[in-house]
């Protein structure tokens, strides 16, 4: 999971990495943190799964996400960049809390909706955009992890489609309730100006204004992510005009 946030402008960086080093450090930090949230979420999910196969699936996904986090951290290490992660940072903590509420309610479907539909939409879409501009092997890593994330959504999608077929209205109401919490948080993370710079992952100024230096914008990351989210909801069969109104009402 990746979302761009903040980094302290005075962080010590290898001089050879230039002005964009701070930006890539933050991109990788957010990616590692997002992946670690996914590790925690899948591990929690394994605890409420009833079938052995489901438990094994969840643990396998947790392992896979751990591998992604390691791959992103390794990209930082290659460049001499320290890649901090903080699953207790403000927005990430909120996303994790939303997931844990579904765990407490032993709501397997709610968990899948948050992780596979919402968080993964943001991960896949933003990784793909970053892959296009990230230097060297970092780009390849983002691209290949985006593909892996996309691939493992298929199984969850078939479970969710089957669940919706049982009672579409109830399913859509559940998605909306989760959307209000999770997608609002994600939208706030990617809002163009985070004036308070309070993402708590990094102590300093926001790097979003630096994104154009590497051919990205926070608007682009946000737009691509919400587009991916809308298409995922389409694939589940939710009415397009309804989900458009949901997305249109998110904070900007």
């Amino acid at each position, binding site marked *: 999971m990746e979302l761009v946030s903040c980094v302290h402008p005075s962080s010590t960086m290898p001089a050879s990495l230039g002005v964009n080093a701070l930006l890539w450090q933050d991109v990788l930090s957010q990616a590692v943190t997002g992946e670690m949230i996914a590790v925690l979420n899948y591990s929690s999910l394994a605890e409420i799964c009833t079938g052995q196969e489901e438990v094994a699936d969840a643990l396998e996904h947790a392992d896979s996400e751990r591998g992604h986090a390691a791959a992103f951290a390794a990209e930082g290490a290659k460049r001499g960049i320290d890649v901090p992660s903080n699953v207790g940072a403000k927005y990430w903590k909120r996303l994790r809390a939303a997931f844990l509420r579904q765990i407490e309610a032993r709501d397997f479907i709610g968990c899948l909706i948050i992780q596979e539909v919402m968080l993964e939409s943001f991960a896949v879409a933003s990784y793909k955009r970053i892959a296009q501009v990230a230097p060297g092997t970092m780009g390849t890593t983002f691209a290949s992890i985006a593909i892996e994330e996309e691939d493992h959504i298929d199984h969850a999608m078939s479970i969710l489609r089957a669940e919706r077929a049982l009672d579409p209205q109830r399913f859509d109401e559940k998605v909306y309730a989760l959307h209000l919490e999770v997608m609002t948080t994600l939208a706030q993370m990617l809002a*163009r100006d985070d004036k308070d710079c309070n993402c708590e992952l990094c102590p300093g100024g926001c790097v979003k204004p630096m994104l154009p230096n590497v051919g990205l*914008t926070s*608007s*682009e990351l946000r*737009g*691509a992510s*919400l*587009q991916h989210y*809308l*298409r995922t909801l*389409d694939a589940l069969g939710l*009415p*397009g*005009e309804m*989900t*458009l*109104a949901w*997305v*249109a*009402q998110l904070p*900007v």
Partner: protein
Amino acid sequence: MPTDFALIGHQESWRAASDVLAVLRGPDHPPIPDEEVPEILPWIPPRAVCHIEVRSVLGATAHGLYIDSFIPPDRLDSCFLRENLGRVREAAAYASMEGAKIVSLGGFSSILIEGNLDRLFERTGTVFTTGNSLTVALIVQGMEKMCASQGRDLRLATLLIVGATGDVGSGAARCLAPRVKRVLLHARNPERLYKLAAELRLEGVIADVAPDLGHLPACADMVICAASLASPSLLLDGIAPGAIVCDAGYPKNLSPGSRGARVFSGGLGQVTAGMTFEPDIHRVLYHQPVPDVLHGCLLEGIALALEGRFEPFSQGRGLITAQRVQEIETIAARHGIHLAPSTCEKAIN
């Protein structure tokens, strides 16, 4: 509820796009700042934005969807052709998946796809129409009404058609050229232009081609702009003083009263038995002094749905005939769909 029809459109200005997003956000959320809209809109995949209920004067009701292709207003240009075609195709697929029996293509969607309708995603039971036949009917009605209100005799007029070889332009030429003294045809493609002129001459029409808007003979006292003008002043400098000008291009860019010309917006119709949009985006898209006004291309699908004629009435390019125009005009009128009153009464300076 069955989906009788779907209308595919897009917004022609950022203002309109902002207004649509504001309606979707609802009254409890502040509007998206104007500067953010161009950052957001291009990412929205084509989809329905509202449901429409249309009523016929005969008592019938048709239900449909307005599907926005979300083509960004600053990308209505040939260099975005591939991207825009993709959006229109995706909107068409959406309409089919929603079970629409007939789909009308509005504005630029129609221009993009008029020669490629057979390449649209089609599911059994969904047909597509460009809607251009009813657009032509409403343009012709508008010209007739303007002539009558100005005390002009159509038979003595010299009619200039800009964009004459397009679907709407050639359809308007076939309907009106035989009724005027002389017709001047302008278009960018000389081959098609000469072909159309030859076709009209066979009908006894005095038809001349005017390939260069900068060198018009200055005698045109009736003008139909079926193509959007890159330079409106070039046209307005070259026509007769007080000429009646029907702005039927897309997007419309002639202002009422320009240089003494009597400009009006062509191709708009009114559903006299009324229609309802939910959510109500109609009020932000059509700033007309009368209610229930829509573009003719969209109304064609509605008229056919009310009639229960789910057929691809207008397809291809350059195939619109006077007979087909009369036929769709009769169908529309039967259900109370007529020329929008404001077309003639309010737009004249």
